[in-house]
């Protein structure tokens, strides 16, 4: 399985590390809202289909990536830097061959 890193291009999945669900929103660290913390820690959409995810290209450029992966087919329909201001450095579109 290949994942197209926006910086490095298509690389083997072994170079990437899954960093978790990309739909979560972390409450402010000082937040006392237990429901918000509970949702952040435990609630997952668990969809059978497209899923927003955070990955890291840990065996390459080490940047964190946002991806949409289909949990049924494993097709990755989009990849991008988790940090938006990196996007100027991108050269590879999701699914692109080079």
């Amino acid at each position: 399985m290949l994942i197209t890193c926006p910086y490095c291009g298509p690389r083997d999945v072994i170079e990437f590390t899954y960093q978790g669900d990309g739909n979560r929103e972390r409450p402010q660290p000082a937040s006392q809202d237990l429901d918000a913390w509970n949702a952040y820690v435990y609630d997952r959409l668990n969809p059978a289909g497209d899923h927003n995810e955070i990955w890291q290209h840990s065996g390459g450029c080490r940047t964190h990536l946002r991806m949409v992966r289909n949990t049924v087919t494993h097709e990755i329909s989009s990849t991008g830097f988790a940090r938006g201001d990196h996007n100027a450095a991108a050269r590879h579109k999701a699914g692109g061959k080079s």
Partner: protein
Amino acid sequence: MAERQSPERQLPERLSPLEPVFHTGSHGNFEHGVDVILTETRPGSILQLAAWPGAEKQLIEAIRKVTGLALPDGAGGGVAKDGKAVFGFAPGKFTVVDEAEGLASAFAKVVTPAIGTITDLSHGRTAIRIAGPKAEWVLAKFFAIDFALPAFPIGAGRSTTHHDVFAQIQRSGADQFDVYVFRSFARSFWKALCHASEEVGYEVQ
């Protein structure tokens, strides 16, 4: 009382981690010719430079000012000439190499804390050069990346791993690559590289 250190701290003499397994001469299946040449380039300076967000262009300008090397646009772009080399390996991050020592202090004057950071890896990385008509072939056995010239142009850099050993690879010629690996893994990587080169015949210089 111990003698006070001079401001220009003298670093200890650098020893090659490859020394016990570095055997010059031809090896492997070389009866029909040597298809790769393996060397340790032993550059004096290996630096990692990182720009703060938004300061990438200033860092690229600083690299041009100090080394005279103009980085081409684009991810992984780089250039290698006159004993110096630079390439991007991540957004806003660059590896800079010089045959001479002292590159870190030259950059310290130009890369201000407002622009980014300098990490001196001169003692932390080992530079291995593989050259020859089968260099792409041998490296392709290690790394799952495209080594063909159109996908990996001269001067460009790539960041990847071989069994969890990080490697930064720069193409410094049409059939020549410089591989930067952790010094602590360099001997093991070198031995693996020699084994992988046996089938094509290799010479250690």
